[in-house]
């Protein structure tokens, strides 16, 4: 009887903290998004279009139909997967801005496995390909991870530079005489991957694939791991106070390397899901900036894994709806990029004020400050 009560109260507190987390970490970004839409509305108005018409079209494009909803999910998937990795990096005090490159690396690795006609069930083949993507991301994280952990070199510039190395590596791989190239085509690209390695389509006649489920499940797992396990505690400790972590007997160099590899692995997963679920082949520039957008996603969520799910959907919807907005109101779909940029700029502009003016809200302050610290180096 006693035990049951205990479990019950524990469950209750678990639910409460989770709820609190959602409410508080989302408050700041919501203001920022509101402001971003407001400023964008002024810009839209300045080009003699009614902003409400434009926004209604945006909303309809993202949620108004099954196809739109599917498109939102498709756009959100890579943002979610890569965003989770970046958010996890934040918690460990790492600023991984190389998701773009990791996506290329993961996509390439997944393509290699997906091109081989393995004599195994489809379920196994696709799993292997996804794992290959994860491994590809990890490989792309070895250099920045090692340099950061063992030689004290900031991971920021190294991950940024590796993005371009990845782009040209893909360029080499799919160019005609080279390993992954499809022969006798006009475009440098790989052949279509095996049917058995493609992620299943969830809704018929749309391109919505299972990558989104992978993302949501991993997001929930990551959230619970970070919040309630010793692993999460260790991660947060090396992010917030590496000195204390060292005194507590955590082998911090190894932990930093580990954190970097996992963070990059998520980027690889994002690339793999793009190839296996949507593009079905590898080609030049197939990521096209999504890896950078994922940084905005992670930031808007303040590094919180649950928040990343929401912000990835928000950005996904924004991108999906922007096309409809262009058709209906003539406002270029690039407006979505502006909204995205403004939202992040407002988050960091508001962020500091909150800490300054409201120093006493304990739980809340804790989570914001942790976030801010994690972004700085």
């Amino acid at each position, binding site marked *: 009887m006693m035990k049951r009560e205990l479990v019950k109260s524990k469950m209750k507190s678990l639910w409460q903290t989770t709820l609190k987390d959602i409410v508080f970490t989302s408050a700041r970004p919501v203001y920022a998004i509101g402001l971003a839409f407001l400023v964008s509305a002024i810009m839209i108005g300045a080009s003699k279009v009614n902003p409400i018409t434009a926004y209604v079209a945006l909303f309809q494009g993202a949620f108004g139909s099954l196809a739109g909803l599917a498109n939102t999910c498709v756009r959100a998937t890579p943002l979610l997967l890569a965003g989770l990795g970046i958010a996890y990096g934040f918690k460990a005090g790492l600023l991984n801005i190389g998701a773009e490159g990791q996506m290329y690396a993961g996509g390439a690795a997944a393509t290699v496995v997906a091109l081989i006609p393995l004599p195994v069930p489809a379920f196994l083949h696709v799993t292997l390909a996804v794992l290959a993507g994860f491994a590809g991301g990890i490989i792309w994280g070895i250099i920045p991870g090692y340099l950061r952990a063992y030689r004290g070199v900031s991971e920021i510039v190294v991950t*940024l530079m590796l993005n371009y*190395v990845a782009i040209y590596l893909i360029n080499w791989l799919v160019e005609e005489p080279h390993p992954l190239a499809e022969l006798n085509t006009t475009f440098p690209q790989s052949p279509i991957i095996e049917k058995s390695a493609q992620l299943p389509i969830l809704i018929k006649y749309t391109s919505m694939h299972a990558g989104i489920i992978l993302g949501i499940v991993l997001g929930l797992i990551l959230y619970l791991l970070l919040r309630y396990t010793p692993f999460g505690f260790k991660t947060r400790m090396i992010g917030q106070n590496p000195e204390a972590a060292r005194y507590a007997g955590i082998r911090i160099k190894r932990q930093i390397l580990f954190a970097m590899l996992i963070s990059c692995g998520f980027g690889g997963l994002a690339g793999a899901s793009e190839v296996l679920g949507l593009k079905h082949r590898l080609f030049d520039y197939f990521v096209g900036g999504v890896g950078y957008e994922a940084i905005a996603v992670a930031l808007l969520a303040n590094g919180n894994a649950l928040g990343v799910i929401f912000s990835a959907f928000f950005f996904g919807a924004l991108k999906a709806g922007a096309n409809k907005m262009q058709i209906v109101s003539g406002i270029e779909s690039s407006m979505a990029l502006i909204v995205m*940029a403004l939202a992040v700029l407002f988050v960091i502009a508001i962020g500091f004020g909150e800490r300054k003016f409201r120093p006493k809200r304990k739980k809340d302050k804790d989570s914001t400050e942790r976030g801010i610290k994690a972004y700085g180096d």
Partner: protein
Amino acid sequence: MEISLGFISDWLSAAVRQAAPVMLVGVGGVFTERSGILNIGLEGMMLMGALTAVAANFLTGGNVLVATICAMLAGGVLSVGHAYLTVTRRANQIVSGLSINFFALGLTNVLIARLFPTQRCRVALYPVLVPERLHDIPFIGPVIFSQSVIVWIAFVLPLIAAWVLYRTSWGLNIRAVGDHPHAVATAGLSVIRLKYVGVILSGMFAGLGGSALVLSDLGYFVENITAGRGFIALAAIIVGKWNPIWVAVVCLLFGVADAFQLRLQTFGSAVPHQVLIMLPYLLTIAALAGFVGRTVAPKTINQPYDPEKI
């Protein structure tokens, strides 16, 4: 492929032309980094400068000088935003810079579609000062004389920048503020103001670099025309060890590699041309890892300055 004098002078001419815009951005970037503020937004500021240069040029009917000034102002305005967020609000420098890149990409895409809705329009270019008949002089003709005036400016500016940075007291202040901001504050100087000036200078130079990119031989703007050149400038700053002259030399080296890579593609060879494009990025990582001499970044780079916290 055949290596002749013609080939070499053609190659170097292209290298010099391609290096110039990056050089301008890189040399400007030295000032912001020396003041302790990392500016990843250089790419976006360059892009904004490029669009503004074309737009102003088009709207004024070919006034290159006005276009250049407008481009510098456009870069400057974006950098004021970066300075406000990173210096005054002490926000994260990387995040601010990245968002500025997004913003600039989105804004230029929207604006260019507005400006030239149907077709791409060519605008006036920077003038070439040396008369045409001297361009045929072997080697120096194509490499130096045939270049437009902005390329010459790009090659003179690093010298001026180095002189300012190492031979004037203001330069000393800028260098000191990145390494020991509190000492600068103790000496009675405004750390905030110095940092602002450093960031804004970098933004204006980035705008100028953007203008050099579009108005030296293209004359039009396409979406994302900078294509990572701002990041190459960032790489050159690190490999060039935060010294304007070395940064310029590294930019030129990158230009030489890039121009060679383009020629390699047309001739075809055993060495993949991608290796040469990767060179700037790989060199930067090697420099950071300490394989290419000792790299000492400004001490407080990427850290917010808090006057109350030592």
